[in-house]
Structure formats: structure tokens, C-alpha cells
């Protein structure tokens, strides 16, 4: 069997990468400081944390749901992890009597917190059948309130150097955060295309009734989806604390919206059942380059939001028209 490569299909499926390339070229021409190592590294580091949230949240959207909790979860796990990795020499430690412990313990505890909240989301959505929007709006409020209660809304500063390394360090010339983002992309992509879980979630998002009749345990899979999203958000929170050298209950505000926007721009359909990891990566980078580009060009922060909003809307309009033509 000989197959000629279908260029037309390839381009139509990856048109979003073309948009990204065009944007990058335009920026290179418009601003000499865009295509520098320092700037590109900065963009990647900034977007990695949002990116990790996005590869979690995209599963929820794929399953025809949504997750509004990640931003608040970032706040919660930033303070949970930070509270246990403060320098022992620092006098204002949150738990002055806490013995020294390896940093993986607070990290694992944070991940568990994320999974627990995710499981709660999944359970609410799968079993009480309340809309995902409502369920995760509720847990968003709860998670952020937990972060504030935990710290009395004080920041948790002066973290250990080996913890901060996760957010600030480099392996060779690659920032650790970016590396972790790449690992999450690979895991998410692998689950999506190479496992039964991925196939199940595609089917649930496409037609949950059909999925059920085909013997798929819809409830169990939905819980897994939200646990994964909660887990991703927890990791995002840990990394943000490491990156900024402190945990803070006000961190991660609106991060979930950026993550949802990235997944949406990347072609994840809110009617469920459609999602490509490559699209989501492009979506994250497009929003990142846009933000960075406008900053470099000195466009006002308020106007930036206008562009961002317009791009998200345009992306969905374009995507829907493309799909409408197909039918």
C-alpha cells in the first residue's frame, strides 16, 4: 500500500502552527529583541506553568466539561508546598518546629491535594450530574479560601534553594520548568492517543450515551479526567511557588481562564470530543507570543486584553466555520 502524503489535510489540521509562525516572523521583524535567547526563554518559562494547567484542563473540555478550579489550586498548592520548604534559618517560618524534610514530601502532599480536589470535582460532575461549570466554580472558591485560611492570607517566603531550583534552575540551557512542561505534554499526549483512557474520554465527549452503551464506565473516566486536571494544577502551583520563591494565596488568579483560552485557541472543542495535543501547545505559544510581543511593542496592558479576547473569539469562530464546512 502506497500512501502519498496529504499536504492539504496536513495544512488544514495544523493551520494553527502557521498562525504561530506568522506571528513569530512578524514579531522578529517588528522588534529586534523578540528573537533573542533571553526573550524566548522568558516566554517559555512564563507559559510553561499555564501550559501545564492547559494540558490538564483540555481533558475536561474534551469530555464536554470545564474546570474552573486550576487557578485557585495553584494558589493552594503554592502555599501548601511553600509552607514546608521554608529555609530553616528563616525566623518567620509558618511552622517553626517543622523538621527538615526532603522537598519531595511537600511536593507529593501538594499533588495529593490537587488530586483530592479533582476527585471531588469529578465525583460531583459524574454522580450528582451538576454542570461542570457550577461544580468547579464552587471548588474554585473553596480551594482559594483554603489557601487563605491556611496562611491567613500572608505570603510564605524564603524557600529552600533546591526547591526554588525547580522554578528557576536550568538543566544545561533548558529551564527546569520548561522541561517539566514538556514531560506533561508528552504524558498527556500519550494518554490521549495511546491509551484506552484517552479513547474513552474522546468517546464520552463525543457522545456520552453511546460511550455508555459501548461499555465505557463514564463516571469513573470523568473522575479520572478531573483528577488529572487537579494534579496538573497542583504541579503548576508548586512550580509557581518555586519560580517566585514564595507561596501566596493570591497567586494564580485567572490562570484557569488562560489555560482554557489556550486549549480553546488550540482547537479543543467545547462541544466535546475534539482535541489535539499539538493544537493545544500551539494555542499556549500563540497566547504567550501575543502577550510578549505586545509588551515588547509597548502596547498598553489594557489594550493587550482586548487583543487577547479578540483572538480567542476569532479562533473559535474560525474553527467552527471550518467544521461547518466539513459537514
Amino acid at each position, binding site marked *: 500500500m502506497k500512501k502519498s502524503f496529504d499536504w492539504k489535510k496536513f495544512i488544514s489540521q495544523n493551520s494553527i502552527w502557521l498562525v504561530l509562525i506568522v506571528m513569530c516572523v512578524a514579531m522578529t521583524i517588528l522588534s529586534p529583541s523578540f528573537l533573542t535567547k533571553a526573550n524566548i526563554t522568558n516566554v517559555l518559562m512564563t507559559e510553561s506553568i499555564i501550559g501545564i494547567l492547559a494540558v490538564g484542563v483540555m481533558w475536561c473540555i474534551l469530555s464536554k466539561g470545564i474546570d474552573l478550579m486550576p487557578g485557585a489550586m495553584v494558589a493552594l498548592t503554592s502555599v501548601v508546598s511553600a509552607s514546608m520548604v521554608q529555609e530553616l534559618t528563616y525566623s518567620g517560618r509558618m511552622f517553626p518546629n517543622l523538621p527538615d524534610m526532603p522537598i519531595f514530601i511537600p511536593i507529593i502532599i501538594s499533588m495529593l491535594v490537587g488530586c483530592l480536589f479533582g476527585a471531588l470535582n469529578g465525583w460531583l460532575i459524574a454522580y450528582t450530574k451538576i454542570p461542570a461549570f457550577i461544580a468547579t466554580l464552587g471548588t474554585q472558591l473553596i480551594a482559594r479560601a483554603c489557601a487563605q485560611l491556611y496562611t491567613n492570607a500572608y505570603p510564605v517566603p524564603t524557600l529552600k534553594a533546591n526547591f526554588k531550583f525547580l522554578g528557576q534552575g536550568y538543566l544545561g540551557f533548558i529551564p527546569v520548568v520548561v522541561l517539566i512542561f514538556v514531560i506533561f505534554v508528552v504524558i498527556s499526549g500519550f494518554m490521549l492517543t495511546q491509551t*484506552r483512557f484517552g479513547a474513552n474520554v474522546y*468517546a464520552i465527549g*463525543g457522545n456520552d*450515551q453511546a460511550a455508555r452503551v459501548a*461499555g*465505557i464506565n463514564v463516571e469513573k473516566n470523568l473522575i479520572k479526567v478531573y483528577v488529572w486536571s487537579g494534579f496538573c494544577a497542583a504541579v503548576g502551583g508548586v512550580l509557581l511557588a518555586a519560580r517566585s520563591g514564595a507561596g501566596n494565596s493570591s497567586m494564580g488568579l485567572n490562570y484557569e481562564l488562560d489555560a482554557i483560552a489556550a486549549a480553546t485557541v488550540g482547537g479543543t472543542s467545547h462541544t466535546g470530543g475534539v482535541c489535539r495535543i499539538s493544537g493545544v501547545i500551539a494555542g499556549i505559544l500563540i497566547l504567550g507570543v501575543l502577550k510578549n510581543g505586545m509588551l515588547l511593542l509597548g502596547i498598553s496592558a489594557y489594550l493587550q486584553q482586548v487583543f487577547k479576547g479578540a483572538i480567542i473569539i476569532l479562533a473559535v469562530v474560525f474553527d467552527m466555520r471550518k467544521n461547518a464546512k466539513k459537514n
Partner: protein
Amino acid sequence: MSEYVLEMLDIVKEFPGVRALKGVEFKLRPGTVHALMGENGAGKSTLMKCLIGIYHRTAGKVIFKDKEVNFNSVIDGMKAGISMIHQELSPVPMRTVANNVWLGREPRKGMIIDKKKMREDTIALFKSLSVDLDPDELMGNLTVAQQQMVEIAKAVSYHSDIVIMDEPTSSLTETEVGHLFRIIRQLRDEGVGVIYISHKMDEIFQICDEITVYRDGTYVGHDLAKDTNVDELISKMVGREVNEMFPKVDCPIGDVILQVENLKSGKQVKNVSFDLRKGEILGFAGLVGAGRTETVETIFGIRRKDSGKITLRGKEVTIKSPEDAIADKIGLLTEDRRGNGIVGIRSVADNTVLAHLKAYGFPLNHRKIKQDTDEFVKKLNVKTPSNDQLIMNLSGGNQQKVLVARWLLTNPDILIVDEPTRGIDVGAKAEIHTLITKLAGEGKAIILISSELPEVMGMSDRIVVMHEGEVTGVVTRNSEQWSSEHIMGLCHGEKE
């Protein structure tokens, strides 16, 4: 003025691959109640939908009040004077009765809705129909019968010349039916032409003046109700001999594999018992709403079982979900292909392997998935440009074949097929029939639900007939009772 308020002549309606109406006629006199009768799929509903503007007819003429008309939407039809009361009412439950009656055409004073007038108009309207309802009550608090009255009042408020009622009594109690009939007679006496669609023989003879019968999208005949009787009507509705297009091959029938005793689930499945043997095709006949689909859904674990015993291969089993059913080697090709069959935006390949994903390991063996899809697409003659094609772009018949492939891939011992040929073209239909027969020949046990009597009779070894959630009879091929008239009688609730 002609003697008819409505004449529909040589109406043809084609859907892709199906000719639902093949040039039928219908004539309605003002001031009469006119029954439309026929089996499921005879074309009654299609004809009415062509009339009120839900469908556009392919050919033919509609003459309404001496003028040729062509409605583009239901609103057009209502404004002209044709109202339809659907079997499934669609009220706005959280608004008042008055709001529902005047929805979209509320009386106004300038920009503002004139609530007082709306209320008074509603009261006057109800009074003229002797309906005792509070216009301020929330629609959602009304019973189905009361909601229906509101719908009828709404039709009257449009000064309709024609009111169409599709199975209006299906969820009414006897007293409520009496009340409905009183209003229907009142409408009739005021000169309204009422079109009455129902399967209930006794009601037809109680309320209707004229009867028109359809079969397979063709016009069979027209009678005055007083000149005909139940038997004559049934034989007209069934009409044909079961034709020979069904490839029934006698094959050895083995042991009982599935035994269902006193199955109950909700209101739809009241008391169902039957058994199924290896190599047997067990037909399920009945009218729409007889509870056949609900019965197999209960067996398959989609619906909760209230009580009853299911014995599989001699052992009692509890099936709580389709997952359990599939593990017990049962497959269910559902009736609602789009609703719970295909995953439209996924590919042919994804849809084919959906129920069999467990077999492809971790990570998924994509080569094996491709192999299996190729094999079954070829075996079942699915016409698709490629296996990556989205299934929603395939024709209904090919979608159905993919779904059959999905279940064959799981290699079930029992395959339940619910309306397997509904809405698919003749060619694919014959292929599916051949396939089902072949599967039975391989020793699989088949349950075939079909509302097309010829299909059920052409394919089955035995037929379980259901009526309103209960089994009214089991008829064996080549027995004395094996006649369409007898089975049709059982469908209408005549017990053996």
C-alpha cells in the same frame, strides 16, 4: 367552496435513500374527525409534517380552503389555520398558563405586554371550551392532560380550521380521555376539521367519522367509520403478504441461553418473561411505546431493574451496566443510532473498536485496531472513503454497519438488535438482514426488535408481542397463530 377544507394530492416525500411517501392522498371535510391509521412507518406522521411545514414535500399538491399552499414553517401553518398537538408536548414549564397560550404573540399596549388583556382573553378562551384552569398557574404544575387542554385552547385561539392530534390519549386516564373527546366533539360541531392519529381501535370508532389508512408510504383506502370494523381495518393496515425478501434460513436451534422472568423496570416494563435459545432469532413486535426497547435496555444494564430474574447460561446474573453486559457476552445495537450509537465526530475506526478497546492493551495496539477495522469494514461492505473518515459523514446504512461491526468485534453470544433497519436504504437493509440470519446460523442468539411487522415475521423463529409493558403473546413460526392479523391484534392488546 369545495366540500373539503383540505386536500392533499399525490404527496411524495423523499429522504436520502428512502421514499417515505409515494404519492399519497388525504381529504378532510370541515366539521369531521378524521382518523389516520397505519403501522409504524406507514407515513402518517411524515404526511402531517409535510402539511404543517416541518418537512418540505418533494412533490404533490396541498389545497387548503380552495387555495394551494406551501408552508415553510409551523408558524406559517398556524397563522393560516392549521395547528398540531404533538404526542410529546413542549410547554414552557416555568411560565404561566396564559403566557404559554399567547407565547410569541402576547397582546400589547405599545411595547409593553398587556397582562390584563392576556389574562382576560385566556379566561374567555377557556370558558368557551369549558376548560376549568387557572391562567396564572405555572404550566409545569399541570398534569399532562391539562397541558394538552392548554395546547388545544391555543390551537382554538388561532382560529384553526384544522387541528391535528398525534396520539393525544397516550398518557391520559379514562376520565381525561372523556373530557378530551367532549372538546373534540365541540370543535367538530363548530366546523373544525380534526385529524386524529392513534393506534387505539376503540377510540377511533368512538370519536372518528372517517378513516384513511396508509401502508408503506402509500394510500390504501378511505372509509366512513360506520361502514367498517376493526378486523377490516387491521387487514388493510397489514395488507400485504410477508414478502420473500427476507432470507430466512432454518438453522438448528440449541439450548436456552437467556431466560428472563417477571422483569420490571419503571412504568414501561411491567412484567416481561421470555427465553432465548442459541441459533434462534427471537422477534419482538409491538407498537411504539410498548416497552420493547426498555425491556432490552433493562437486560443490558442501561436501565435499572426493579425486579425480576435474568438467567444466563443457566446461572442467575446481575447486570448493572453495559460494561457487565458486554463482559457477559451480550451486545446491543440500539434503536437511536445518533443518540446512543455512533460517536459522530470520531472516525470509522474509533467507532468500530469502541466496545472492544480492552483487547488492544497498553499502549493501544494501533496496528491491530487498523487491522480489525479493515477486516470488518470489508466484511460488512461499509462504504467509506477511508477508515479515518468521521462516521457522521457516512450514510445511515453505513453507520449502522459500523455499529454492527462494533458488536461483532466483541464476539457476543447474544446480540440484541433494536430497529436495525430503521431509516436506512433498501440495499443496506437487505445486507443487514442477511447478516443477522448468518449470525444465527453461527449459533448466536439474536433478539430482533422491529416495528415493521413484515421484518419481524420475515426474520424471526418466534415472536414475543408486547403491549403497554406486558407480553401479550408468544407466536412460533409455522404455528396456527403465525399470521399478521393475529400478531397485529396482540400488538393492540388483545390477549391470547
